[in-house]
């Protein structure tokens, strides 16, 4: 039993670099697998609606008639179910996270 068993650890920490990232001066390192946010390419989409059906959070709305694809990023839980389900591979996962926003707006994509 000792009273100062932590002292050695604390002393060592004094001479080490910080364990935290000095955000915003330094950015976090993302891995290849990191699920950051989903990205959508409207031009290859066939508006089949599979992603809407597979989405566990109900964040995706697809309107086949108007060729409209909507995503509510505040509902999206970034599980990757839509990326897996998409038959045309027009949804893909990006490593970086979504930037903070001040308004709760849905992201709309309309086929040209």
């Amino acid at each position, binding site marked *: 039993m000792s009273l100062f068993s932590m002292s050695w650890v604390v002393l060592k920490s004094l001479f080490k670099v910080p364990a935290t990232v000095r955000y915003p001066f330094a950015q976090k390192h993302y891995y290849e697998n990191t699920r950051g946010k989903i990205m959508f390419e409207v031009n290859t989409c066939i508006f089949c609606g599979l992603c809407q059906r597979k989405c566990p959070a109900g964040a995706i709305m697809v309107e086949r008639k108007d060729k409209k694809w909507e995503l509510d990023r505040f509902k999206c839980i970034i599980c990757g*179910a839509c990326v897996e389900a998409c038959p045309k591979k027009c949804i893909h996962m990006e490593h970086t996270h979504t930037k903070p926003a001040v308004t709760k707006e849905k992201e709309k994509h309309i086929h040209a």
Partner: protein
Amino acid sequence: MTKRTIIPFGPQHPVLPEPVHLELAVEDGKVVEAIPSVGFIHRGLEKLVEKKDFFDFVFVAERICGICSFIHGMTYCMVIEEIMKLEVPDRAQYLRLVWSELSRLHSHLLWLGLMADAFGFESLFMHCWRLREKILDIIEETTGGRVIFGSCKVGGVRKDISADTLDRIVKVLHEYEREIKEITDVFIADGSVKHRMSGVGVLSKEDAYHLGAVGPTARGSGVDFDMRKLRYGAYKNISFAPVLETAGDCYSRCHVRIRELFQSIDLIDQAARKIPAGPLEIKVSGFPEGEFFARTEQPRGEVIYYAKANGTKFLQRLRVRTPTFANIPALVKILQGCDVADVPVLILTIDPCISCTER
């Protein structure tokens, strides 16, 4: 005649960020009775199974808890696979073991940090979480998520870990082992920590058994109760013995978790050496019909999943019995007769997860 006072504990309390309410009946500074009440964050996830495709429900099952998320998802998949008589490939079983043990590592390090915070040892708390962060980085690198892995699916796993990466992870974990030992030695040897925890909240072996305690709470009292001994998944090919302590106080519950950290690293090491090559998943077709119980070992103890399927894409019933729910009777027992000042530490030693309990 001593006066009985009722002191409300929670649902908001600095030591525990989750809402649990306890009514403590206190006489002369000693707790004579504790009445728990839960239900502040009930989300009805078991009912949701009737509206979600059984294949997609694994995303919901993983989100029952933020710390033992992977094992929730894995147990759900095991139930469905057993109902549908699916043979999961060996490689997927081993990968599930690796991720289960990584999740145990990060959960126990989180608990050690919270425990240090509860008895006011701030620098120890930060060092525990610094180490946990390194485990989270490994998890993020291999699965893509930090706490919600999302890598388990019915019939196998979504992600693979290459042999090189797995070797590197084992090497890195052995390097961390030294750092973890440096920190956990403080819990074991430091006079103030020992003084705060040993002899506090003793749960006898008989009580732990009869009250149905699970996980480190039961093993800290000497009850040999580890679901990994059922040899589910890849555990059948791995050798290990459950960690047992006999004193039954806070210190021994803490000691069980510390020893399990090193055991988890050893299990990952064994799995990395034995993992076979092969497919990651098998194709799932048709709908499940029948019912099954699955029991697995989470960082906090045994979790039971029961599912009943009727041949459609929606399950008829899902029941989840989480470890914290099973540990609440044991908590009420250890609170009887303790000092009011010990209550936060005692509540923390069962590693409560209220969002698990209420689902």
